[in-house]
Structures are given as C-alpha cells and as structure tokens.
C-alpha cells in the first residue's frame, strides 16, 4: 500500500554526518548478500593495511623454490602455508602484498576516473546542447574500442608503469561513468529544486555540485563498487597478459602468468592467486548488489 503522503513521521534526533554514515551502513544488515560482500572487502582491506604484520615472509625474497602448501622453511621454521613459487618466494606473502597493490591502484584509478566522468557527465547533462553533443560523441568513440584492445595498444606503446595503467583505466572508464552521470543529471535537472536554484540566480557550478550531484550518489555508489571490481579484474588481467605492473613486486595476475607453465605439476602456484582476485571481486560485486537492494527499498 502506498504510504500516505500526509502521514505523521516521527522526528529522529539530530545526527552528525558520521553517525548518519554509520546508520546507512547499518542498513546493509537488511541484505545478507551485501553483508557477506562487505565482510570480504573489509577482510582484504585489513589484510592490505596490515600486510607487514600478516605476511610471514618478505614477498620478494627467494627462499626455497617448488615448496608445496604446508611445507616448512628449515632455516626460520616458518610454514609456507600456500607453498612457494618457481623461484622460491612465499605465495601467501605475495598474495597479501599483491592485495595491497591492487587496493592502492584500483581505488586511485577508479576515483580518478570518477572525477573525470562526473565532470563530463554533469556538463553534458546540465548544459545539454553542443556540450552534450561533443562529450557524448567522444565517449561513444572511446567506448567503441574493445576495452582490452585499447589497453593492449596503449600499454604496449607507452610501456607498463603504474601511472600508465592508471591513465589507461581513466581513459577507458570515464566515458562509461560520464554516460551514467549524464543520464542521472538529465533526470535531476528537471526537478523543482533545481528550478528553484535557477530562479534565485545560482551559478551553474553550484547547481551541479550542490543541487544535482549529491542526489545522484545512490546509483553512483553502487556503480563505483561494480567498477572497482572491474578495475581489479583489469589490473589482474593485464598482469596475466604480461602488461601489468612491473615486477618484482607481487601482482596477482602476474603470479599466474609467471608460473602457469608449471601448473600441471604445481597447481597451487596459480590457483591461489586466482582465488584471491576472484574473492575480492566477488566481495565488491556482492556489496554492490546489497547496496542496490537497500537503495531500492529506501
């Protein structure tokens, strides 16, 4: 039943921004799937932050090659819980540090792509006209590239550095974000509160940033989670193709690539990194699904 528009709504106590944020996170309890996702993401985030404490070995130290999971390092007595790779580095430590790397580059690239995409989308959706024509056309052209074809050319031409990967991700992701923001802006710009701001002579930048953007945050947060998952996949896949972050620092996709010739004999060398990346992306996707679910209920 449609709730009455004129029904008495109890007054909640005044809340600070932090309390409200905590409350909206608490809403996630409504979605068990979202809770699982948030748990996985949180676990990886903690592992990345406390990597030096958690990792039993230096991730780049070559200790003993071809150790199977559970083997013990005779010199230190530490266990290689997930075994070692072909040049003797501890796989568990590399996975933990690899997570750290992904969780630094992924969010930076995603956030930067969002800044660019939001700026483009707001301008196209709010001003429309030739702004929209030009920005939409540019996005269409970038989006017409199959994404990995784009990465392959850019990175093979300009080289695989962290900065180039971040730039390539911004270039490839911003148009998609622009489309979403543009769509939301086209909808929100017709709201009466935007008209109210216009009729009191507010500057367009104020209207876009204060009246429109905050009200588009729901779908954007969901999209950001999904996109972060996708960026994680991208970074991993580039590593797998040999176009990723430069060695020797650990990289999940790179670990699979380096050891895949030995897979028939030592499956642990590639299965665990695959599990690591899959679980992180799964966590992000489940979190996005949970957020979407509660945002619909709200």
């Amino acid at each position, binding site marked *: *039943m*449609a*709730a*009455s*528009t*004129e*029904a*008495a*709504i109890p*007054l*909640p106590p*005044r809340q600070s921004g932090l309390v409200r944020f905590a409350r909206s996170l608490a809403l996630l309890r*409504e979605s068990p799937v979202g809770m699982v996702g948030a748990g996985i993401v949180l676990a990886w985030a903690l592992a990345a932050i406390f990597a030096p404490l958690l990792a039993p070995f230096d991730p780049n130290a070559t200790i003993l090659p071809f150790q199977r999971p559970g083997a013990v390092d005779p010199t230190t007595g530490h266990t290689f819980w997930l075994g070692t790779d072909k040049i003797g580095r501890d796989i568990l430590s590399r996975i933990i540090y690899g997570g750290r790397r992904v969780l630094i580059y992924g969010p930076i690239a995603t956030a930067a792509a969002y800044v660019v995409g939001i700026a483009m989308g707001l301008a196209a959706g709010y001003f429309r006209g030739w702004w929209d024509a030009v920005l939409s056309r540019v996005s269409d052209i970038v989006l017409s590239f199959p994404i990995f074809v784009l990465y392959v050319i850019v990175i093979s031409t300009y080289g695989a550095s962290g900065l180039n990967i971040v730039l390539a991700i911004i270039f490839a992701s911003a148009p998609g974000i622009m489309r979403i923001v543009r769509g939301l802006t086209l909808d929100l710009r017709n*709201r*009466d*509160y935007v*008209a*109210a701001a*216009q*009729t*009191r*002579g*507010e*500057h367009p930048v104020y209207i876009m940033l*204060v*009246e429109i953007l*905050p*009200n588009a*945050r729901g779908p954007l947060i969901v999209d950001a989670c999904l996109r972060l998952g996708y960026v994680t996949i991208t970074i991993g896949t580039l590593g797998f193709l040999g176009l990723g972050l430069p060695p020797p620092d650990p990289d999940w996709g790179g670990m699979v690539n380096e050891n895949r010739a030995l897979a028939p004999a030592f499956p642990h060398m590639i299965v665990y990194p695959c599990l690591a990346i899959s679980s992180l992306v799964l966590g992000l996707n489940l979190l996005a699904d949970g957020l979407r679910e509660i945002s619909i209920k709200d």
Partner: protein
Amino acid sequence: MTDDARTPVLEIENLCISYFTRAGEIPAVADFNLTVYEGESIGLVGESGCGKSTVAMAIMRYLGSNGGIVGGSIKFKGRDITHLSDEELRKMRGSEVAMIYQEPMAALNPSLTIGAQLMEVPLIHEGVSEQEAYERSRQMLADVKLPDPDRVMAAYPHQISGGQQQRVVIAMALLSKPALLLLDEPTTALDVTVEAGIIELIAEIAQKFGTAQLFISHNLGLVRETCDRICVMYSGEAVETGTIADVFTRMRHPYTRGLFGAIPLPSANKNDRPLVAIPGQLPLPHQRPEGCNFGPRCDYFREGVCAPQAVAMRDVSGAANPHQTRCARFEEIDWDAPLGTGQVNEPIEPGELVLVVDGMRKYYELHDRSVKAMLSGEGVKYVKANETLSFDARKAEVVAIVGESGCGKSTFAKVLMGLETATEGTITFNGDEIESTEVQQRPREQVASMQMVFQNPNDTLNPSMTVGGQISRVIRKFGVESDADKVHDRVMRLLDMVKLPRDFYHRRPRQLSGGQKQRVGVARAFAGNPAMVIADEPVSALDVSVQAAVTELLMEIQREHGTTLLFISHDLSVVRYLADRIVVMYLGQIMEQGTTEEVFSPPYHPYTEALLSAVPIADTTIDKRKIVLEGNLPSVVNPPVGCPFHTRCHRKIGKICETTRPPVLVDSDTHQIACHIPLEELQAVLPVFFAVDSDGTPTGGGAPAESTAGG
C-alpha cells in the same frame, strides 16, 4: 432510489486486509462492509492511504505477494471470491469484473497493437473466432465514441492521445459485458475538458449496459456526478455511507464534514467563508489510535465514548435510505454549527501596478533535421508557446492563470523568472523591463522580489540538504542577512510564519509529509521579502484536507505581506475561491480575462464556458449545463490557424474562425474576450451554473433552456 428487491452484485462483509512486511503485519483495511446492487454506481472516496484502492484490488484479489485478505468475505453474485481457485479467479477477472485504471498510457501494453489487446478479451473468455473478436472489438471502439475505429485497432497505444487511450481501456473493460466495473481514479491523469468527456461516457455506460460501478476517487465533485451512493473511507475504515443526497447534505461523520469544509465549494470565499482544514495528520497504518481513528483530529472526541473501544458503524435513524456512520456521538453533535472560527477578512484594495505584460511572445525554434525539410527550406519551425500575452497584476492582488496542458502557462512562468527570454513584447516588473534579462544578469534585489512556489512536494526540496540549510542559502544568496546568527534567526521566523515547528530546521525533506514540504517551499519563496510570488499549482498534488491548510496559509501570508500572487492552476474551483482576477489561456493565447465574478458569469468565451462546465462540483444545491468538447487538445507544435479553439468549439460560427485570429471584445474595463462571436450574442448565453433544490429541479429563473449549447 435504492430498491432492496434488486439483486446484489457485490457483497463485502467485515473485510480485513493486511500487508505483511519485515516490520510485521500492517492492517490496510479493517471491518469493511459494502453492498453494490445491479446497475448501481457507488463512489468510494477518501484521501491517499485510506485504503480505497486496496478494496478495489481485493475485489480482484490482486494484492501483490505481501498483501492478503485476513478476514471477512467478498461475495460476487453470491460466490465468495476469497475462496476461488486461481483458474476460477482468472475466469472471473476481465469477464465478470473489469477494471479501469488511473493512467491509461501505463495500463496499455506499448508493444502490442490496440486491436490485439482488445481482441484478447473475447478470445480468452468466450473462445470466439478471430474474425468475431475483431468485429466485436471494432464495434466496442465505436461505442466508446472513438473516431475511425479501424485505424485505432491497428495503432499502438502511444499513437493516440491520453483521452483516447482511456476510451480504449474502457472499451476493453466493457468487451465481455461485465456485471461490475471498478474505476480507479479514471480521470485523474487527464485534462479537465477531456475528463468531462470520459465522465459523460461512464455515465452513459451505466445506463446503456446496466453495469454496476465502483467509482474510486478523491474528488467529491466527480462522485456526485457519477454515483448514486457514496462510501467515505478514512484510515482503512468506512466512516460514512449513504445516498449522495444524504451524505452531501446531511453528513453525520465529523471527517466527512471536515472534507466538505476543506474543499473550495462555490459557496466558499477567501474573505468571508474561508476553507477550514482538518487539523492534524492522517495516522500511519501501524500507528492508528485506539478507538475512533479520526479521534485525534476530531473536535468532538470524548475519551470513554470514542476510545479506547472500537467504534462500530451505526444506522442514522430516520434516514429514508440506508445511511450509516462510524461516529459514536453523531446524535449529540450539532451538525448545523458552522465550521471554523468564523473569522472574516476584510477584502484588500489592490495597490499600484506591480507587473505589466504587454504583447509578450515566446516562440521556440524547432529544428527539423530531415533531408526533405532542409531541401524545402522548412528546416526551422516555430512553436508559439506564448502568443501576444497582455495583462497586468497589482500589489496585493491574486491573479490566476488558468488553462490545460500545453496552454503556455509554464512557459510564461519561465520567461517571468528569467529562465527564458521573451521573443517579443515587454514585461515590466516594478518599473523595470525584464523580458530579455536572464536571471543571472538580474540585480539581486529584483530576483529576490520575484520568487516561485512549485507544484510537486516531493520535488520541491533538495533531498540531501536540511530544511534549515535550504532556507538559509536563500537568505544569504539574496543578501537579506549574512551574519550566521541572524540568518538562523530569520529561518526560525520563517518556520514560524509557515506554522512549522522550529526543530524542523535540522530535518531532511524525506522526514516531512507532502504538506510540510510545500510549507517549506512557501517559506523559501518568501525568504527574500518578495513583491510577487508565482505559485505553479502549489496544492494540486496534495490531499484535500492538506490542500485547504496550504491554501489558507498562502492566502494569509500573501494578505499580511501585501504580496502579488500569480496563481497558475487548472483547477477552476480553487481559482474561483482565491483569485481576484483570472486569465484563461488556451494553446499559448489568452482567451478571456476579467475579475473572478466576470469570468464566472456571462458573457463567456466558449472555451471558458466549456471549462466551467467541466468542473465537478460537490454541492448538491448547484447544477450546471453540460458542454462536452469534441476531440483532443491540439499539439502546441502544430496549433490550429485562426482561433486556436476552433477545432473543438461548440459555438464555432464559420470559416472566419479557421482563418483569422479573433478580435478582443471589451466587455468592461477589466473584462476582455477574444472571440469572433459578437459580444451581444455572448451576453445572451445562459449561466453555466444554476441553483437547484434537493431533488434536482432548478429553482429561480435560471433554468437552462439549452441543455447542450450550440451545435
């Protein structure tokens, strides 16, 4: 009128419906009883959330996955439908009980032709041949007066107008000759003059097919025009049922009486008979009070009598026809005592000219980018959104701009506010010409002194900012105050002015009800001490009792501040109540303007006449001549040449109407009509409204000689 010997079609007994959510069981409808006899029309009336649509859906047993009938029975022709199997239910739906919906566009499948959707009904329920189904559907389209049924059969829903879509939906419902028709706000989404045509059609159906009707509406006037009996619902319960005459003139429930006090009946007047809002708010379904649901809002509430025990429906003794009320004290209440405080406001003299609009035009360029249009040089078309508008408004005056969709009232507001610039003509505001200055270029004081109140309460406030933050922003922006404490202080005084608690400062819009949001919108508009406020349908999206409260608030503030109010509306009842002068627009042009008195009495522009006739009136002492316009509202992109109204005019005099723009006839200093018909002839037209006594016969000399005018 009611004859108990007739067989009942529908008997609802002690019906209880609940929705089941995470928060637990939420009762939507409780202890509901209703009997509908063959061929009878019953109106189910109430504000949003009262459960009227839930009752209709329960009759169809379509309550969604989380709703259920938890008690009582619904007997259709003696069979309890609460126990039907799915297959039995399917056979009943659409063949014996059919439904007509609020939004016809949404109710039709966009990717199937209308023919396919209509033919389905006889194909499924009667198993006739395709040929037979086509013939029947075609015939039914003709019966609901759709021109060119063959073309409509082949069309997709988006290819016909809203009024035609609703006729298609009605045809679909009637195809299987149902015994009961459920009409869920069937005209709410339509324009006034289109609504009148649909209402006439619905009334004809009742006579022609003898179908019993359950008419769900929030509009008492519509119910009066279409129904024999009425059932008023409040907060999930029926509170009063009876014949139209009984309930409209001898109401015996305080809520019903409150409703009538809150709607702008022709007898209401902003100065000596103001609207009286029902105090308080509708309780949420899970927060209903003990005893009488209306108790907390009722002046006659008495602990021990009205609560804590539940109040039952009781017969009103002495009534000739069944008349029941759920009021525990109806015998003790003095039903003739006047509502409200009886406060009388002195009429205010309008002051100097604030706004002068002279020959203002607003054309939009429409680019046709097809190759053909470019070759023929017809690449640019003009949409004449506003065509030579001329009128003025004085200090402390309420001027209403009235018209249906596409009449150009919103475009005019945009030009006025500086969101668009005029193509031609001038607009003078407080002595400054503003027609070609965009809002960003206007001086701050000028912007502050002309502000707007918007239509949609759910849209008017920024959902991510607190109420206080939004009003403070306006105060700072207009430079009324800049010191933080003073700004805060001013916000508080504005909240007081719109009668909201001061702690609303920290609330966000979603914690406010619709009426409260509109109040904040009013406070925001008045934050810069405006000389003129433009109110764009400020109450049309609100419930009846809330409408009254917001309207009265707006009138009170306007009166106190001597503000000029430009009130844009399609609702002539509200306009008659509050406007000093009225401007009637049609397809971008002014058809008639004058004082409220002048516009509501002859001479009329034929369009005004039709518009007045289309207004549903919930006053049984007043009747009106029926003028139903043919056809649809033409598109603004391609308006008729000559007089824009000639395609639908019931008084069209000939070729001249199609070729020449009508002259402006001057009836008085204040009253002008744009029409080719000579003024004397228009003056001879009878008034649309006339008084009748209780059984409907005209009193006095105003009997209508011409029941349908012209021809």
